[in-house]
């Protein structure tokens, strides 16, 4: 018997099996690895430049300012003028080729930064289009990361909100089998409401955010209606209530 029928069926099934979640997962991974290579490239580049012009490399520790300053010219005279420092340096006098390497690397770093921006924009627009409720509650970056961790939106929708709350803190969760304290939050920690929350209330607010995340993802997967504004306003209200109840005045 020939296996061509099986191959054909399997091909069809694979083709139909893909979801938009797979694309989102890959884009999140791509964005992460771009960021990683961006950082290593900048680190080494700054280190190389330090040899030639340590005074300038010391000022330009930040990636963006390093790239914008070195974009035009990398030699001491023009950069010293730009930064307003003396071009009489204690660095090693490198050759013309080495400066060329630096300028090429700066170009490359700029390209990588542009690529990252492009990938992220695509990812965020995809999230807003496909999962409006989840994006509304968590923001596009965190929402995409949530799907990355949960593998599929349909699996996320079936999780309890307490599971969503500690998603991404698996290591601490396993450690809690031996120690006593379970983690209060996983990836959800990066949510704006938790960032600005006072230390004592972070656990409570994480619980609220997780429960509204659960509602949002369920709405996205099952009813596919855009109720993001309603869910978000309810969540903000609930967070305010908790803050008031615990004797902390809201700032606004």
């Amino acid at each position: 018997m020939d296996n061509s029928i099986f191959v054909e069926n399997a091909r069809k099934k694979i083709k139909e099996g893909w979801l938009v979640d797979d694309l989102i997962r890959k884009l999140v991974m791509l964005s992460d690895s771009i960021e990683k290579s961006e950082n290593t490239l900048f680190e080494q580049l700054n280190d190389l430049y330090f040899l030639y012009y340590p005074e300038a490399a010391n000022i330009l520790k930040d990636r963006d300012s390093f790239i914008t300053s070195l974009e035009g010219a990398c030699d001491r005279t023009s950069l010293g003028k730009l930064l307003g420092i003396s071009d009489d340096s204690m660095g090693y006098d490198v050759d013309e080729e080495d400066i060329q390497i630096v300028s090429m690397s700066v170009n490359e770093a700029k390209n990588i930064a542009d690529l990252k921006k492009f990938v992220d924009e695509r990812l965020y627009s995809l999230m807003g289009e496909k999962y409006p409720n989840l994006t509304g509650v968590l923001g596009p970056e965190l929402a995409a990361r949530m799907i990355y961790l949960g593998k599929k939106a349909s699996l996320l929708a079936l999780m309890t909100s307490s599971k969503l709350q500690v998603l991404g803190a698996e290591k601490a969760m396993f450690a809690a089998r031996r120690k006593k304290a379970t983690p209060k939050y996983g990836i959800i920690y990066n949510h704006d409401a938790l960032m600005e929350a006072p230390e004592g209330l972070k656990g409570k607010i994480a619980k609220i955010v997780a429960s509204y995340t659960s509602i949002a993802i369920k709405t996205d997967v099952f009813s596919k209606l855009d109720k993001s504004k309603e869910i978000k306003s309810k969540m903000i209200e609930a967070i305010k209530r908790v803050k008031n109840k615990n004797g902390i005045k809201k700032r606004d």
Partner: protein
Amino acid sequence: MELKKEIDGVYWLLNDGKNKRTLVTQSAYGDASVYGEKIFRYNNSIYREWIPHRSKFAAAFYKGLTSIDLKNSYTVLYLGASSGTTVSHVSDMIGTNGKVYAIEIAEEMAVNLVLLANNRKNIFPIVNDARKPLLYKSSVPKCDFLYQDVAQRDQTEIFIQNADMFLKSGKIGVFAIKTRSIDVSVNPKEIIRNETNKLRGKFDVLRSIDLYPYQKDHSLLILRKK
């Protein structure tokens, strides 16, 4: 170089001088390397290296498995085929007259499996969930050999279900247990004892092989259906 036959299609390649042996399978489909393994030629035959770090079945041979009832032109059901690393060697062992039905659920892995099946005509890929054998019951016949490597919490139940439905009586089932995916907090030895107890009613447990150091937290059970 010297060849020593272990079972149908599986050989030890002995290098005299050095105390080193390499597990190889006699390739049934040409000299193409499937996943980057080495290819050996000996007496006009082509042999593919079977790496114990990549395949649990190969690790079992390195850990002392000597004979197993897997012969030429057997029909094999393989659950959890993944990208087809071990499947390609099983397809070598059963030869062009045999059949291996490879079940895999994840699309990303199944792509490689389908590409492999394009070249190796004795691999029958099925993209389906091994938890639901009824879904592929119509396309898979009774089998002479069952291999399972799914690393799921309920993998013992999956194995029993599939063996009930597809494995012929008196034939061998090979069951790769990943103790970490069943329960992380319990002692691995205890897990294996519990799982073998679950299997005892329907199978004779012939051997249990710990695959350390080739595979971490994995054991291979050789079972015979009653």
